[in-house]
């Protein structure tokens, strides 16, 4: 009886530890070789045949097709530069310049990777649509209500993620975070 109870206990621990660790790793996005610049994180290796098992499992779980490295690189931000999670009820300003690329796109998704409905049907910007200052830098306001300039509506959702994708770029597996890869800063301006 003691043997039976003992083995049941050990198996229960194994199931909880094993499945729990898998669940956490796949929902929190554990993957090796992440490239973090400011609040932005990219995993260039996920877009290659050398993708690690965690990246492969995450791809299978979310159901997305990752950007292939020969195509581009995708950076995700879920928090602003102060580490506060992005909130669709606040005004958030993206400002600065981007690394060299032929085109880039900025898109706003909810936590499930879906586009967020809004009154003007704008889900993002491409590098050609942006109004820039004379020095080439730009400012994008991500806010629930209309703003002058480049306004990206949040639709008032509680949590969202910004995805900045660079197409035909030199940013890749060998890129190190630093001065050669300038990414736009993310700052919360006002929060009701």
């Amino acid at each position, binding site marked *: 009886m003691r043997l039976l109870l003992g*083995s049941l206990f050990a198996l229960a621990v194994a199931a909880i*530890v*094993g499945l729990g660790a*898998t669940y956490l790793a796949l929902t929190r996005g554990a993957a090796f070789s992440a490239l973090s610049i400011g609040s932005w994180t990219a995993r260039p290796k996920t877009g290659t*045949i050398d993708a690690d098992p965690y990246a492969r499992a995450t*791809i299978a779980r979310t*159901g997305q097709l990752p950007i292939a490295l*020969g195509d581009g690189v995708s950076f995700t931000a879920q928090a602003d530069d102060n580490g506060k999670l992005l909130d669709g009820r606040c005004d958030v300003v993206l400002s600065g310049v981007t690394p060299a690329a032929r085109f880039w796109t900025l898109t706003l998704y909810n936590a*499930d990777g879906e586009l967020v*409905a809004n009154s003007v049907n704008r889900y993002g910007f491409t590098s050609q649509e942006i109004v820039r200052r004379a020095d080439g830098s730009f400012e994008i306001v991500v806010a629930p209500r209309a703003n002058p300039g480049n306004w990206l509506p949040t639709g008032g959702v509680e949590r969202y993620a910004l995805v900045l994708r660079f197409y035909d770029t030199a940013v890749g597996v060998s890129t190190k975070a630093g001065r050669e890869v300038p990414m736009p800063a993310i700052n919360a301006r006002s929060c009701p």
Partner: protein
Amino acid sequence: MIRWLLLFFGGALLGGIVHLATVIIMPRTATQDAYSRLARLAPVNTVTALPAPTPENAAMPFMDPAFASAVCRYDLSEGPLKLTVPVSLAYTSVSFYTRYDVAYYAINDRAAGRRVIELDLMTAEQRNQMPEEEDVTAADRLIVESPTRTGLIAIRALAPEPGLVPMAQNTIAAAQCKLADEQKPSR
């Protein structure tokens, strides 16, 4: 007490094995991965245009709304595949994925250096069976080797501004993927 502690550590150790095993098995058992989602929409060995993603409806999560996209779900068991994609004015790319959604190759319009991206897709085995002389004349023929027999090709054209969406869609509509043998008699 010691007995229970030992059982706990034994269980935790076993848990580590369970964790690694589930992570590795995950891609093979997933029913909502990109390939399975697209298998419902896209017939095999032809190009299927995907509807533009909207908040209510998207073929896959995290699709880039600035692109017009299409997929070709391939199966190489009946022979190599021939892919032709005309190049749009802005940016066009073709990415290749295995059955388990891992990208193994991608090419864009600039890397192709022509107005049409032309590729032959085959397995390593089919490439080895190719006649020698054909390999020699194929100097400017782009051959891509697929690590798996089935997989996905994603064809995407960028519309840099909303007014250019029809142009991007036309590019995608003109893309073709066919079994190489089927094409021979007509040419």
